[in-house]
């Protein structure tokens, strides 16, 4: 009855994912682990994974694939279903329906052998406060049957600058130090797969850099890493692929560059203006080469232009013609944050419109009756 317009831009990405017609780009073709294992069995695979709490659908038919040897960034706004998904992957929460495979085997959390091959860092730094850092790691080393635990613990603590404080009680550690200690614990037994929930939260810039370098090193040694994080700049710098989830649905899954490329959105130009006229943004949007104007501050604007030739000369000419003093102009790359915001906002818009359309249809239907 109603013609459905062919989706374009971000809507095409969402539609594509919803139709399970995803395609993947290899973002780092030089990455040895990825090159070695084309089409290898994913280390994490979820199929039609659902979790329902009463009438609330926390995770909705989620199909996630984490390939061997990659760093996979799992992103989503608060309450998107990230933690629930991770808990289901780890066998802590039972899915309402669907299937989870970890390290190529169906996993419901009961296999001790599989758990031995996972390293997990949870968002909150949960530790035994009455133990020293060394005792804490020694406890987990025993649990995981680590051979030569002393040297392994020393190596891990030294790598994250905690060796000197190994005899301090964990209760006295700062949040950042606890987070580092969590990472040491997760890496003690040399796991094949690392699952990290907000691994850099609470860390200072030096700590963030240390953890980033550690993760990249571990990945170079062939360890597969799934990171769930809000710190998009970190994911941007470390992840080979990212998956964006909102309202329990996987909205997009690709490399950072791949996402930006598929989103389109054209060139982004940042302008610094001196006392721009009040109607300037309306005039700019009316230009054929301008798609969107974002006033970041009263004098700093982001202009999203059409794809194709460099529009900066044309833009400069227009601004000068309007009598606007341009102090600065620079082309900016589309960041993961831009992609994240665009995708999640578009999804919310799409769902809202769909909800309204459905409500409208129901109302019409009732009116007909």
């Amino acid at each position, binding site marked *: 009855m109603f013609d459905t317009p062919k989706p374009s831009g971000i809507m095409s990405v969402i539609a594509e994912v919803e139709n399970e017609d995803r395609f993947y780009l290899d973002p780092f073709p030089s990455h040895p682990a990825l090159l070695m294992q084309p089409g290898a069995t994913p280390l994490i695979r979820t199929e039609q994974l659902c979790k329902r709490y009463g009438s609330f659908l926390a995770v909705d038919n989620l199909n996630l694939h984490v390939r061997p040897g990659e760093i996979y960034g799992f992103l989503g706004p608060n309450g998107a279903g990230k933690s629930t998904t991770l*808990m289901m992957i*780890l066998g*802590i*929460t039972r899915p309402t329906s669907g299937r989870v495979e970890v390290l190529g085997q169906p996993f419901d*959390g*009961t296999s*001790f*052998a599989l*758990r*031995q091959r*996972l390293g*997990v860092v*949870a968002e*909150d730094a*949960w*530790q*035994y406060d*009455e133990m020293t850092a060394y005792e804490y790691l020694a*406890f*987990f080393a*025993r*649990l*995981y049957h680590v051979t030569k635990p002393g040297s392994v613990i020393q190596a891990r603590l030294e790598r994250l600058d905690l060796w000197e404080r190994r005899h301090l009680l964990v209760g006295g550690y700062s949040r950042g130090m606890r987070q580092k200690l969590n990472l040491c*614990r997760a890496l003690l037994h040399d796991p094949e797969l690392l699952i990290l929930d907000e691994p850099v939260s609470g860390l200072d810039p030096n700590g963030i850099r240390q953890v980033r370098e550690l993760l990249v090193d571990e990945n170079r040694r062939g360890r597969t890493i799934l990171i769930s994080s809000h710190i998009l700049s970190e994911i941007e710098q470390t992840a080979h692929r990212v998956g964006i989830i909102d309202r329990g649905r996987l909205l997009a899954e690709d490399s950072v560059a791949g996402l930006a490329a598929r989103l389109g959105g054209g060139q982004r130009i940042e302008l610094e203006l001196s006392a721009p006229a009040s109607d300037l943004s309306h005039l700019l949007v009316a230009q054929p080469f301008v798609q969107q104007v974002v006033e970041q501050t009263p004098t700093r604007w982001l202009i999203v232009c059409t794809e194709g030739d460099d529009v900066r000369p044309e833009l400069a000419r227009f601004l000068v013609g309007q009598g606007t003093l341009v102090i600065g102009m620079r082309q900016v790359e589309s960041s993961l944050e831009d992609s994240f915001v665009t995708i999640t906002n578009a999804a919310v818009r799409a769902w809202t419109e769909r909800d309204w359309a459905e409500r409208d249809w129901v109302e019409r239907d009732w009116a007909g009756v």
Partner: protein
Amino acid sequence: MIGRNVIGWNVIGRGCRMASARFALQLSDRLYASWQVARRALISTLYSPGIYVISTLTLLAASTLVLNNLAFLSENGLLVLTRPFFLPAFVCGVILSLYLSLHATLQLVREREQGTLKVLLFGPVDGVSFLLGKLWSHSILYGLAAVMVVLWAVVLGQMTNLLVQVDLIGVMGLGLLANGGIVALGLFVGAWGRTARTSLIVLALVLLLALIAQFGDQALVQMINQGVGQANRQDPVRFLRAALDGLHGLILWLSPLAQMSRGMDALLVADGAALLWRAGAIIGQTALYFFGAAWALKRGGP
């Protein structure tokens, strides 16, 4: 036809062998994990003052009872008193079990609240091995305390010339079983409870109810025998006693301490069969609470 049957049996046999090997592996993993959990809990408890404070108080209470026995001997001019350490040892067992049960509940709920349980469950520990670890650690603590009580009885026996009989070890052994049951009950309450306060209040009420039902009807029998409420048949004390009697009958099947009390009666009359029956009942109660706790933990999540 025969060949096909042989192949079929071979397949079934191999399947059974694989299943039993997997079960054995899982069991050994689980036992290892539970021992590590127990070890940590044990060290943590031994480094805190609570267990020492309660042990001292327990021995003080038991010593008071022994002093009462000595006073009874001198007042009545008796030369011999059978089993003078029987009741003090029982009291020690009950107090220690109640404390360890509360301690186990608190440990479980705290680990849950602080999220350390979740971190364990991410690794090679599951709900059953975690609970088993707690049960082990609290049984070992009780065992240590029981050895201490026996030593105390031996020393006091030497000092006062009171007879220390071998069946004191039987009382403490029965107490060890009952302690397992009470700790499992504590873990059961802790696994269902969401906060430390709620769990502790619920457990304290349950234990109080069990103790009231166990000792309350005996007190009421004494009151009735002493003449209270003899005036008419409608006396509320009689109804209260009847109600408590019923509750006692029910709690006998639910409370390991009630079974322990009956087990001690069997010890007194040297009834081996009854003693075994009571020990079996305590083990059954322990299993019931333990698996109830494991189920609650799995259902509610960490």
